């Protein structure tokens, strides 16, 4: 082995750079011929094949669910195709016939898949990718039959650069982006599922390298998924740059676009234990403090003093940042034993959030507001830190009623001379009606915060936990995007600022779109913060606005997704 620096060129498929040690995981796992075995019993082989098919079926299902959670609904659908290939009558017939003719099951599987794989490989355009899918299904079956499970892709040591002849979509989906420094394959193209998975997972990847990759096992490698290059034995400086390019670099300072526009990047927290990780990941503040944890799993409501302590702790964790508390947001779907919560046929359209706070839970609401204002007073907040927002607002009257409860609470505190802070007040936009009333609501409060999960569910009439309508539950559907645009414009007109605290905010792919739409703040799970901040700093506002304008003209989610993808690809190519 020489330590000479060498450059290999391929096709970059994800805009990331990574540095690590090469690890050859072999050629396509089932293409190697195994030695001919002795006589086999067809009946035994038949039942081995059947049980392997069941195992493969379950593992496809698990991968589909994992892809659904980690990557996206579109990408997960590839596993539906895999399921159909697994049970395809032409393939199963061919395999069963070969087994009847005396072939061992693994060989029967390999030979039945060989022809169709070859046929798809010669097809033009996107259909050629079916060859990858077939290989993926075949490898699953063969692995199960031969008991030779692949290298444990899920648990490769940190800093591994995976080297392979090719990676199937399911293998790619199993890579842990926190540990894998990148992957390099000999085959593959930009539009293959494997490439799309790599992009979604943020794994640096270069495909289509013509060199002998097995020889790079154990070598220090720099994978530049943007330039499409691999550097063997990179220089110290290159290594440093690669590691700095990894978005895990935490920035504690606020994120700024290239043209100097500051975007507040905050964390969503659900318990006090989430505060420290939020700080560690560089949150500017808390954009959504879900106060429910104080109320759940108890037999009686928490008293004012213990609430005060909890709120104060959150405020002290971010002395220079904003902490937005959402008032109690419960409904029939998360019953609380000490509250009167009759079962409702459709809890998401029933008594929840502010609706309960203004009626049956009014005492609790007043108490919570009192505890919040006092916590603000205790930390000496003189504006800009303590913020309160109301969930599930659908009318201007509800907003006014909630504001007047707050005004009464503040008056009460001032009458008794209790130190209290006057909070900034906001409304959550999570119903279509609130979105359409954004101007009227923004006129009455300091800020709006869009909860995209619920907003999407209500706009698209698709429950978020119902997998059967998962395709509808996507904020990239044009009506959702257009509502977002309207809310931001209306709020800004009323001099209110606008944030987003739904899952969409934590998706780095959407950061340019959200900046382009004019969001002032994005709040997300702590782990997404470094990457989103990183993304913000690469954005030019005017370009992002153009992107948003373009996406708003799309007619379908498919067009939006495609346009977004094209845009990212364009940025990646440096155009």
């Amino acid at each position, binding site marked *: 082995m020489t330590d000479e620096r060498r450059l290999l060129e391929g096709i970059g498929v994800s805009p990331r750079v990574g540095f690590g040690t090469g690890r050859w995981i072999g050629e396509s796992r089932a293409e190697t011929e195994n030695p001919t075995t002795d006589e086999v019993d067809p009946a035994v082989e038949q039942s081995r094949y059947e049980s392997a098919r069941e195992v493969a079926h379950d593992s496809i299902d698990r991968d589909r669910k994992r892809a659904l959670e980690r990557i996206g609904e579109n990408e997960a*659908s590839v596993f539906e195709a895999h399921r159909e*290939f697994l049970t395809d009558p032409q393939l199963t017939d061919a395999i069963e016939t070969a087994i009847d003719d005396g072939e061992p099951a693994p060989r029967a599987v390999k030979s039945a898949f060989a022809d169709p794989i070859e046929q798809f490989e010669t097809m033009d355009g*996107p259909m050629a990718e079916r060859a990858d899918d077939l290989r993926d299904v075949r490898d699953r079956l063969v692995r199960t039959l031969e008991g030779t499970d692949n290298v444990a892709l899920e648990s490769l040591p940190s800093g591994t650069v995976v080297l392979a002849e090719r990676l199937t979509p399911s293998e790619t989906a199993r890579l842990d982006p926190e540990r894998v420094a990148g992957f390099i394959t000999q085959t593959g193209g930009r539009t293959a599922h494997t490439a799309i998975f790599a992009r979604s997972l943020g794994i640096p990847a270069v495909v289509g390298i013509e060199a002998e990759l097995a020889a790079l096992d154990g070598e220090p490698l720099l994978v530049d998924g943007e330039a499409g290059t691999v550097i063997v034995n990179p220089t110290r400086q290159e290594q440093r740059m690669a590691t700095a390019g990894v978005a895990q670099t935490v920035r504690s300072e606020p994120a700024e676009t290239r043209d100097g526009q500051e975007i507040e990047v905050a964390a969503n927290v659900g318990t006090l234990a989430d505060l420290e990780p939020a700080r560690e990941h560089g949150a500017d503040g808390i954009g959504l403090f879900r106060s429910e944890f104080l109320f759940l799993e108890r037999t009686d409501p928490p008293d004012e003093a213990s609430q005060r302590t909890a709120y104060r702790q959150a405020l002290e964790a971010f002395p220079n940042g904003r902490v937005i508390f959402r008032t109690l947001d419960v409904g029939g779907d998360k019953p609380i034993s000490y509250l009167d919560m009759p079962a409702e046929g459709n809890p998401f359209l029933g008594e929840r959030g502010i609706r309960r706070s203004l009626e049956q839970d009014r005492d609790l609401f007043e108490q919570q507001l009192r505890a919040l204002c006092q916590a603000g007073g205790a930390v000496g907040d003189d504006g800009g830190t303590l913020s309160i927002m109301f969930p599930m607002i659908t009318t201007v009257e509800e907003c006014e009623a909630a504001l007047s409860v707050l005004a009464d609470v503040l008056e009460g505190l001032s009458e008794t001379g209790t130190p209290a802070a006057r909070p900034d007040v906001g409304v959550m936009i999570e119903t279509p009606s609130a979105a359409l009333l954004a101007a009227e609501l923004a006129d009455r409060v300091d800020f709006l915060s869009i909860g995209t999960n619920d907003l999407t569910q209500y706009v698209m009439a698709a429950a978020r936990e119902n997998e059967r309508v998962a395709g509808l539950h996507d904020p990239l559907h044009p009506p959702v995007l257009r509502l977002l645009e309207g809310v931001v414009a209306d709020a800004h007109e009323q001099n209110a600022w606008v944030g987003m605290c739904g899952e969409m905010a934590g998706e780095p792919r959407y950061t340019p779109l959200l900046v382009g739409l004019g969001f002032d703040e994005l709040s997300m799970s702590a782990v997404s913060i470094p990457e989103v901040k990183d993304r913000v700093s690469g954005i030019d506002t005017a370009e992002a606005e153009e992107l948003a304008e373009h996406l708003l003209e799309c007619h379908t989610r*498919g067009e939006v997704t*495609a346009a977004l993808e094209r845009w990212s690809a364009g940025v990646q190519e440096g155009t």
Partner: protein
Amino acid sequence: MERTVTVVPEAGLHARPAATVVQTVNQHEASVQLATDGSEPVPANSMLAVSGLGVATGEQVRVIADGPDAESVLDAIEAILSSPLEEE
């Protein structure tokens, strides 16, 4: 019973629409075949056969169904092929 449908999804009979067609066929009591202009009819309960047609967007597909559910399976397949369900 048969019907001719124009394929709307942008990527043609790509992974997802093809899988959905096969799933739909398997849920109905009918024997279903697909054919394109230049091809012999192929069984629509086979992912291999359906993908193998290599149908691109805008192409016409002949759907032939036979059996008690023929009518409803034709409706269902027509709906899949003519909705712009996107891929990638």
